[in-house]
């Protein structure tokens, strides 16, 4: 059974209310050319995203986790077609949007929105907060001026900002408030899916909690789907229904969050989970896996399994043959040769300290 068909059969994660995925991404790839010299000769390619497939159901949150350079942000941008995909297909509620031009994309842009990491860099400093939140309404010609103003005021209230602040400029807000403006802008057109690219990582801990709660409340209220891209596993764990772990352009493991944390099937997920510091005094006595070396360059990714250069369990086959993402145990996908002859589970150990 192919990954996609198997995922379809699995009917998505908790919170899925319908059987048709809102978003389906199949074998998505994004390569960036490396140009050199006077005549911009293409001398190589960065394989940022290298054949990624997943789906998201209405009302569901998929967390995409991985370290810097693994391609997780590029996945988010490519599926919104802010970057042109190099290969693969993107479907929104069954419609293939992969080849659509900017004009044909317009109705889909209403349905797919984005929240950025740095709320300061993503807000125009010369526009007032009200203009920023109202701009999507103007671009898409939604409502008359008075209606737009009322809509912006109600969005302000919904994200926890006082509507009197509509005239203030981005620099007059704190980091958490700016992220609320970014969220209000993303909500303006009643989207179905929001891609959040590290939406809380620039915020202080006490403000992070406020924004995470807001995102979860909005999801319940509007049945939003989220693709949340983040490097912080604790945040991803808290907010997601399902989690996909990426390493060097590929998804290496994907399942519901309980299965991932109870029983990681991919050695990289296992190492990632054990590397996250836990804010408990008892955590210092736990066993951990410390990986050797650095993430290889996506310009020259290693052959076979991308992780084999750092994998404590690597064997000969891993250096030559790419493992496919397959359903190792029901509803739990992993791309690892260790499980070629059925699940090999001494690998997994519980995360909680003994």
């Amino acid at each position: 059974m192919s990954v996609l068909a198997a995922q379809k059969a699995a009917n998505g994660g908790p919170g899925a209310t319908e059987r048709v995925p809102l978003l389906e991404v199949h074998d998505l790839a994004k390569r960036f050319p490396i140009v050199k010299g006077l005549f911009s000769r293409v001398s190589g390619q960065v394989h940022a995203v290298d054949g990624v497939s997943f789906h998201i159901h209405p009302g569901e949150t998929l967390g995409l986790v991985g370290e810097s350079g693994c391609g997780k942000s590029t996945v988010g941008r490519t599926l919104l077609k802010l970057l042109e995909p190099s290969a693969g297909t993107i479907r929104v509620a069954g419609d293939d949007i992969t080849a659509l031009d900017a004009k044909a994309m317009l109705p889909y842009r209403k349905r797919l929105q984005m929240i950025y990491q740095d709320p300061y860099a993503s807000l125009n400093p010369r526009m007032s907060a009200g203009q920023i939140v109202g701009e999507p309404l103007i671009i898409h010609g939604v409502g008359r001026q008075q209606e737009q103003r009322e809509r912006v005021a109600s969005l302000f209230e919904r994200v926890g900002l006082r509507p009197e602040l509509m005239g203030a400029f981005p620099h007059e807000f704190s980091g958490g408030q700016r992220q609320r403006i970014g969220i209000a802008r993303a909500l303006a057109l009643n989207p179905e899916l929001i891609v959040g690219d590290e939406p809380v990582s620039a915020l202080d801990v006490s403000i992070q909690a406020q924004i995470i709660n807001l995102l979860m409340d909005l999801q319940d209220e509007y049945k939003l789907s989220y693709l949340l891209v983040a490097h912080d596993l604790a945040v991803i764990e808290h907010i997601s229904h399902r989690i996909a772990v990426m390493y060097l352009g590929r998804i290496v493991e994907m399942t519901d969050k309980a299965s991932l944390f109870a029983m990681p099937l991919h050695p990289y997920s296992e190492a990632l989970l054990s590397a996250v510091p836990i804010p408990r005094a008892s955590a210092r006595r736990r066993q951990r896996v410390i990986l050797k070396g650095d993430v290889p360059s996506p310009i020259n990714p290693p052959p076979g399994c991308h992780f084999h250069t750092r994998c404590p369990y690597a064997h000969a086959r891993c250096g030559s043959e790419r493992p496919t993402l397959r359903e190792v145990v029901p509803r739990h996908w992993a791309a690892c040769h260790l499980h070629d002859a059925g699940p090999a589970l001494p690998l997994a150990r519980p995360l909680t300290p003994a």
Partner: protein
Amino acid sequence: MGRVVGEVGGGKSGPGAGGALLEIDDLKTYFFTPTGIVKAVDGVSYSVRSGETLGVVGESGCGKSVTALSILRLVADPPGRIVGGTIRLEGRNLLDLGQQQMEAIRGNEISMVFQEPMTSLNPLYTVGHQVGEAIALHQGLPKRPAMAKAVEMLRRVSIPEPEQRAQSFPHQLSGGMRQRVMIAMALSCNPKVLIADEPTTALDVTIQAQILELMRELQQAYGMAVVLITHDMGVVAENADRVVVMYAGRKVEEADVEVLFERPAHPYTRGLLHSIPHLDEAGKTGPRLRLNEIKGMVPSLAQLPAGCSFAPRCGQASDRCRVSAPPLQEHWPGHWVACWHASRRAQGEP
């Protein structure tokens, strides 16, 4: 790092504890700006002993980094100035020293590792040259032996092929490797105190685990005191022996690491610990729980509220909190809290 088992609450903690290598007492560092006096550090005391790791936690603007810069007297003047307190290294007050004497302390006896290794390294020189230069400067070694020692230091921080890596420029190294170079440089003169200001914040978690493990090993080998400044409660829980929590320029709580995480007493510490998503609660899924929020935001240091600075965000604040600032008191042995309501709260109460 180099943790001492079985010494919990043994009366060793807190301001003025005996045997301290570095001791800061009532430090005040203010910034004189056109919009008013910013009290970045306002009466902070802490101490650290040989072989011990002191974690200093707090959110941006709480004064944790300015305290560290004050120790090395690296605060830009103007606008900043140390206006009060003492900083004693083995009994000697660093604030009494002249510039030249201070230069002999920096790098030799107290070293610092910063968050962003790329901005701390010179892009125009090889990393071997930079580590060697530090050694030549501080230890008065000629160039060739200094370079040889630089390569040796790169080997000690587990940089593979140190002879070749010494010829690399900073941009040719990964973030984790650059931070190893910074640590090699900081440790090259066998400092007594290492101040690490968010040393792993810019790194990925698997690399962070490598660097923290390396720092633990080196601390065990050299027996230095480490001041670990971070916003990450997980990093503190796993690496510190004792923890200082700062808020708005003041220390609000100090305790041994087990006590702080099991029985936090200041409402701010409790709020912080409850507001972060915990990984080890996975498995118990079901409905996603809302996180505990700390309402509002950190006050501006130029316009601090009267009384306790945390009172406007505190669910337990009373009239007294809004009028007068609570002193830091040892409510339980080795457990210091600046809160009017700390003693009313029995330890262990959720």
